[in-house]
């Protein structure tokens, strides 16, 4: 079969049922330039801070009583204090705030984030985390006898990452919420030159799906296959290589590990050349320059911005990107190391927003943060331990920024929302967060429960932070 004919068949298959063997064949993507079912383009960018960001130091109360509670809880005045100095905070003003009101400031290393907040382009989720239903301290404490539903394995890294990724609550779930968004929108957004879900930071449960396969590239995009030059015997070598993969995926005598591996290999070959070329032809941003020293996170975001800049060439209408940076599990040396981590988050987010603005797509692209969990208010000597609620941020032109969503708690050790050691119960849930983002992205109201399975347990299905 000649190559054109094969391409045509693949494109045809993508529109209908493409399962040759179970789901191993997955969705076979059109290699031709497709046009999505959406007239506009929208992208969500998930920035995951691995390890559990100590976010009570990211946005800090600055009014006297609230700061003092925060400082007391964090060991202020002792050698093991984790509190950020009050005078160093970067002040922000909430809508309608007058003298004497509660006030807050950003960590001193977060100038970019503070500026975006002041411009109304960054919203703060004041106390968010995985919840199955609204939870009070009493409900938490008596859950063992009342059966009040709590996310399992609170305070465990991988389990709480999984909660953010999948919103699974106590159910067994094989997909992430971005994966389910892609599946829900598959008919409209599925026929693209690249997967709806793209990770620049390795495989992630967040993007796992039943139908629409995610695609993983490096921080600077895909790698091309060195063995397949377009001259000489290169194209035929590629054909042999692909034929082996196709045969493996279609063979009932191969093992499921071989089939899974072949499926990844096949996507790798199909996308590598086209995406590499598209990125090479992408926009050169002032805010995220092609040359100079960028952090890994900034490189990932530059690649995301470049793909967005060539969205039309690739026939893209809806995309969810995953980028990440680590090092946040600061049981040790928090005071020494957190400023560098937060500075990287702040500057990266600002550079990304500015870049997207350069191509006039700022109203179409929304970046939001996830992290394993918030951390204990109390100090273990020079760091903090695993906890629950914390602060997350949403950035973009379509964000109703400059505001807090959810109630910022009084950071009092032993206070109303502390379940012990300064572990704060979230006031809004990761389900509400995801549902709000998914609604903006184009998921219909009736499908929201597929994306955020616990959403109907909360009074507000939409937190209102998206325009």
């Amino acid at each position: 079969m000649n190559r054109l004919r094969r391409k045509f068949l693949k494109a045809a298959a993508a529109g209908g049922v493409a399962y040759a063997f179970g789901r191993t064949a997955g969705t076979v993507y059109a290699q031709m330039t497709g046009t999505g079912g959406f007239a506009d383009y929208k992208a969500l960018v998930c920035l995951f801070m691995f390890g559990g960001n100590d976010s009570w130091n990211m946005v800090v109360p600055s009014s006297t009583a609230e700061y003092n509670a925060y400082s007391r809880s964090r060991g202020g005045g002792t050698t093991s204090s984790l509190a950020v100095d009050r005078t160093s905070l970067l002040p922000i003003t909430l809508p309608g705030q007058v003298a004497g009101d509660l006030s807050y400031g950003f960590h001193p290393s977060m100038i970019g984030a503070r500026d975006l907040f002041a411009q109304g382009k960054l919203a703060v989720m004041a106390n968010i985390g995985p919840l199955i239903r609204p939870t009070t301290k009493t409900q938490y404490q008596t859950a063992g006898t009342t059966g009040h539903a709590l996310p399992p394995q609170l305070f465990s890294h991988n389990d709480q990452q999984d909660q953010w990724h999948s919103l699974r609550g106590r159910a067994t779930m094989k997909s992430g919420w971005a994966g389910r968004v892609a599946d829900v929108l598959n008919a409209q957004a599925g026929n693209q030159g690249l997967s709806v879900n793209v990770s620049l930071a390795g495989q992630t449960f967040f993007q796992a799906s039943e139908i629409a396969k995610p695609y993983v590239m490096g921080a600077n995009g895909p790698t091309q296959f060195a063995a397949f030059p377009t001259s000489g015997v290169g194209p035929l070598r590629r054909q042999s290589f692909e034929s082996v993969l196709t045969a493996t995926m279609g063979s009932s005598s191969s093992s499921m590990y071989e089939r899974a591996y072949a499926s990844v290999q096949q996507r790798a070959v199909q996308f590598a050349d086209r995406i590499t070329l598209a990125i090479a032809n992408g926009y050169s941003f002032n805010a995220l320059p092609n040359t100079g020293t960028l952090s890994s996170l900034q490189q990932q975001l530059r690649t995301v911005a470049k793909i967005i800049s060539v969205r039309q060439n690739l026939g893209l209408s809806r995309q969810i990107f995953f980028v990440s940076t680590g090092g946040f599990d600061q049981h040790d040396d928090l005071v020494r190391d957190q400023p560098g981590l937060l500075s990287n988050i702040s500057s990266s987010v600002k550079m990304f927003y500015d870049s997207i603005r350069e191509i006039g797509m700022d109203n179409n692209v929304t970046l939001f943060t996830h992290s394993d969990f918030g951390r204990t208010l109390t100090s273990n000597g020079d760091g903090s331990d695993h906890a629950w609620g914390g602060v997350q941020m949403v950035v973009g032109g379509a964000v109703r920024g400059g505001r807090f969503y959810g109630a910022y708690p009084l950071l009092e050790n032993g206070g109303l929302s502390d379940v012990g050691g300064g572990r704060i119960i979230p006031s809004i849930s990761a389900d509400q967060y995801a549902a709000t983002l998914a609604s903006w992205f184009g998921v219909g109201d009736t499908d929201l429960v597929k994306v955020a399975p616990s959403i109907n347990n909360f009074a507000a299905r939409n937190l209102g932070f998206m325009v």
Partner: protein
Amino acid sequence: MAPPISKVEAFRFLNQATFGATEVEANRLIALGDSNNAYSRWIDQQIGREATLLLPAVEAAYPDPIPVNFNIASLNGDRLSQWFTNTLRGEDQLRQRVGFALSEIFVVSQVGALQNLPNATADFHDILVRGAFGDFRVLLENVTLHPAMGVYLSMLGNQRAVANTNLRPDENYSREMMQLFSIGLVQLNVDGTVRNDASGQPMASFNQEVTEGFARVFTGWKWECPTTLPACTFATTRPQLAPVAGYNQVRPMRLYPDFHETGTKLVLNYPGVTLPNATIQAGQSGAQDLKDALDNVFNHPNVGPFISKQLIQRLVTSNPSPAYVQRVAEKFNNDGAGRRGNLEAVVKTILLDPDARNPASGTAAASAGKLKEPLLRLTQFWRAYEATSRSGRLGVAANFSGGASAVFGQAQGSSPSVFNFFSPFYAPPGEISDSGRVSPEMQIATEYVNTQIANFFWTQAVSRTHAATNLAADIMYINTTEELAVANDSEALINRVAERLLGESGQISATLKAQAKAQIERTVVPATNPNSALATRTADAIFLVATSPEFALQR
């Protein structure tokens, strides 16, 4: 008399028990006896072999004198090179393989706080390799008190609560020791299946109060003193950098009693627990607390199935049957001589079990075995092709643009976190997840990593061979002499590659063989100056097999 071991069976065994089957080792195994006794004889020989280590290479790599501003982190590269040397050439293959499996359970990493402690990171791996056939309780204590783990999971310097402040002990090591190194998060049956409560939810194996209890146990430990500086205190923050006698990067942490929590500590409760009320009494010494706490963990019924199943997953198959897990876990619980945690007996049981030795048939074949992790694909390939370098140094940085991790998605001692390169519970969406199975190694088999690995094998096959001239001294090259000799015959060429990488020429699938032959034949061998064409044909054959799904599969 039982039948002799076939070449394919030998390859299957050696890919479970070594860093890659080779024809030489397969023949040696086959010569040890019939299929009833050759495997156990081979294992017994291996258990007797002395451990090859990493620390000596790191110590030897320090320049003398150490220059000002010496980049001590560069010595991590020397550790990694030595790891390749040991895994490619070491005679203690089984010990190395089990040690590597243990290093994916007891994880420390040069990425992060250990970056500038290369001796500690190397020596930590050595205690796993030395302990591969030893006692699990001893290993758990060695791991707990090793300064590499102390730094990595912040037990080093952890101190008791201070009254009237909000200072309390660090929970990092406490939590991960239970979650990752011993019992896991949920209660298990002896066959590794999860125990659910009446409402169908898994039952947790510990809670926050127990995490705090162990956090209190693990207080008061810090650097051991260098012998040259006996007056060190809890406040001594820097280990000595120079590799002198008594060098404290590698000596077990020392207890500083003033910083140890002396109150009671809640520990694990389970049927048969020996401590009254699962509580360590107040006022004991830090050493006694540690002993009681580790005994309490070690005797938890989860340890057998939790550790056994992960060792099976690392060595044999991603989805062992509950019966297989149970056979191994029972051996962990009692080696037959009344000993619990005898890893030698556990490893033997894993490898000699019928589920490991007999190829699965029928529908079970589809989920037998596992995907090879990238490093094991590389080491098998290099071992099969007798890879070496002109300098004789193996696996050094020169071979990997950006480092081994950047190319292969993993490198020894370089995990991104204590959660290893991949999770034992990872299930890729599709038929594996739908059938309730897992494929941990698939977590790092991404489009990106797989492409880079394919490119690595292509470069290796096409330009890094014994025939290449002007290779840099440390570049690893493979020996393709035998392939080149038959490369004018596509059938003979592909058969030779299949024998090397898959065990027998008959093992290669019909499609791969046909496609490889077709590709080989596309390069016509001219009557004069045939060498370039023969090299291209050889490279094509090696590339297509080395990147194939069937080579990626450990049967």
